[in-house]
């Protein structure tokens, strides 16, 4: 990871705290509005990740160094654990993996740019679809994939639709997430520029 100065670390901390504050306050409201079972379409996870990516990518604009977004995510994840009085592994892991994917997008883009942010945001929010399955795979093992595939097959039969249609539905869910992430990246670029303008003396 690139060397970070005191100012870089302070900026990272502030963005981590902002994201943490949003996770703590908005997260509980969104869980009421979006019950857990609505997650596949657009649930709490997608929206919170989108918001989080706006903050984290804005932070990257002020600390354009490899690892900055990951550091912001780790700070947020630990802050969230501290403030809710206990470690909830799944959301912490989600934040960290999303930030790693965002870092991958930024590395591909090489320098801060609007399209780099769009790519980073899209990759990060895309993970929200896979996270639940990833978590189940880690906790329950390979056998759970058989359960999911069995559910897909029997569900298709029960509804009288082709399995390939189910794949189309899944693709639609993925596209929604990519769109949310892309918009988050776009907004991060816009808002980051606005913050810079506001701070200019």
């Amino acid at each position, binding site marked *: 990871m690139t060397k970070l100065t005191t100012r870089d670390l302070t900026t990272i901390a502030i963005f981590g705290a902002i994201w943490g504050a949003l996770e703590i306050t908005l997260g509980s409201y969104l869980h009421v509005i979006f019950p857990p079972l609505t997650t596949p379409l657009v649930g709490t996870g997608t929206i919170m990740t989108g918001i989080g990516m706006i903050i984290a990518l804005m932070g990257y604009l002020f600390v354009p160094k490899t690892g900055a977004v990951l550091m912001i995510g780790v700070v947020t994840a630990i802050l969230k654990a501290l403030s809710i009085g206990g470690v909830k592994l799944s959301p912490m892991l989600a934040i960290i993996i999303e930030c790693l994917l965002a870092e991958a997008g930024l590395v591909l883009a090489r320098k801060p740019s609007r399209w780099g942010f769009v790519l980073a945001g899209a990759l990060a929010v895309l993970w929200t679809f896979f996270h639940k399955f990833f978590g189940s795979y880690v906790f329950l093992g390979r056998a759970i994939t058989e359960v999911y595939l069995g559910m897909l097959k029997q569900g298709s039969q029960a509804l009288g639709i082709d399995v390939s249609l189910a794949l189309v539905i899944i693709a639609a869910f993925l596209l929604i997430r990519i769109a949310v992430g892309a918009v988050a990246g776009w907004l991060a670029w816009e808002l980051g520029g606005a913050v810079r303008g*506001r701070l*200019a*003396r």
Partner: protein
Amino acid sequence: MIEVVDLNVSYGEHKALEDVSLHVEAGEFVLLTGPSGCGKSTFARCLAGLIPHAATAQTVRMSGSVRVDGLLTAEHALPQLAAHVGLVFQNPATQLFCLTVEEEVAFGPRNLGLSPDEVAARVRFALAATGIEHLRRRTVNALSTGEQQRVAIAAVLAMRPRILVLDEPTSNLDLKGTRAVLDTLESLCRQYGLTVLVIEHRLHDLGRLADRLLVMDGGRIIADDTPQHILGQKELLARLGVRYPWHVLQDDWSALLPGGLVPRPGSDEEPPLVALQNVEAGYGRHAVLKGLDLALSRGEFVALVGDNGAGKTTVARVLAGLLKPRRGKVIWNGDTRVGLLLQNPLSQLFCDSVEEEVAFGPRNFGHFSAALLDEVLEIADLQELRTRRPYALSSGQQQRTALAAVLSLMPEQLSKPRKPVAPPHPRQRGIGVRRSPAGLGSPAGARDGLLILDEPTMGQDWRHLSGFMDFLSQLNGRGMTILLITHDYKLICRYARRIVVLQDGRIVADGTPRLPLAVPGQPPMETNLPVSQSTDLSASQSAPGGSFTSFRTSLAIRREQL
């Protein structure tokens, strides 16, 4: 111990310090004061070596020499200097980097590369010296601001500096917090023989502790003598806008008011503007206000005081309609616009120029007009700053911008004529509830206005503070009811005509300060004079709309009295 010779510091074209020279002996307690922007904080940063070494000082130019405890700051790195001179900043929250008190105090010694045993020994020393051993295991962000500031002092002390520099350490604290910090400073100086330099506006708190008082203006030290001698030069202090020390600090709000509070006179002829009846309100399960009864009359200037957590902000939120009471009633008599100004101006500025900021609210409510914008900017003395970025302004200007943005939503109040005020009853000393002669008052159909200000005075020097308060008095003279939440007791006694003391969500005292005011060494004098009784009305009367600057000029004589 401190030797400064021909120190000059510039930020770009702006000269912050000019030919500053100073010698401080070991063990001295020095107080440094001056108006905002005179270079005090820059001087403190030079003493600590932040200028020229810190990351934030890269664009700063410095010449001359600063020697602390035998070390030239320009020739030694910050880690070396930190073991000789410690700097405590104004805001505790921005100088705390760890989760617990113990880790926080150990932070500095660890940065010096000391062994774990030495770090532990220094932590023990620092906690004992500041009297906060009982806080050792506590989480830092759960402490009160006063406790946090003492932790910050302990954290600096753990590096065992021989010089301690504190930049306005009490400006963000309430009375209890201020008292605790001052007691700590006194013991550090007397028991441990530290050389202490404190930058402060509140001279009455520290004047008795200091051996020496320095006054700065325009980047230069213009006075250097004992506190007794300098504080006798009232003209100098008034010219610089430095607050004259007024009273000995006490902890209890009710006891602070000379002679105690006079209970309010019986019920007024007209119904109150708003009445809170047996109100219970709070956040989550916690009730902050418990059976509160409070009535505000039209045109009153009320100060709401109390320790942190007493419920002052909750009262403001209930009155502003942001928080619904769980029990009790809020009864409004007539149509009233309520404006709420919060403590931190930066949290209330949303636009990229002052005029956009002031126009923002009216645009949203659909009653924007260029004439209203001009009027509000004129009244708030922001005409020359209208195209400036709010973040580029000073904190006082930002505060005025935020206030103007609130006032732009109360246009009826701004266009009201001044209410003539009947002279006080011969037996009534000072001001009670003002009664308007029959037939006068608000034009029919015009809305009443209630302006609530939640701690708008934090961190401001006396010149800006008194200007701001004079402006509020002007608004009050136009019939605006003002509810001011503040910790500043001198301000309250000078401007407010009624004081309500809140404790644990209940009112424990409510009345008018008794006059005359006793100032040590000075003849008793009248204060809280009504606006119309100022000795020079011509400036304000010639311009019916009035303006911030002209009003301030007309009250110059009144300010001199204190």
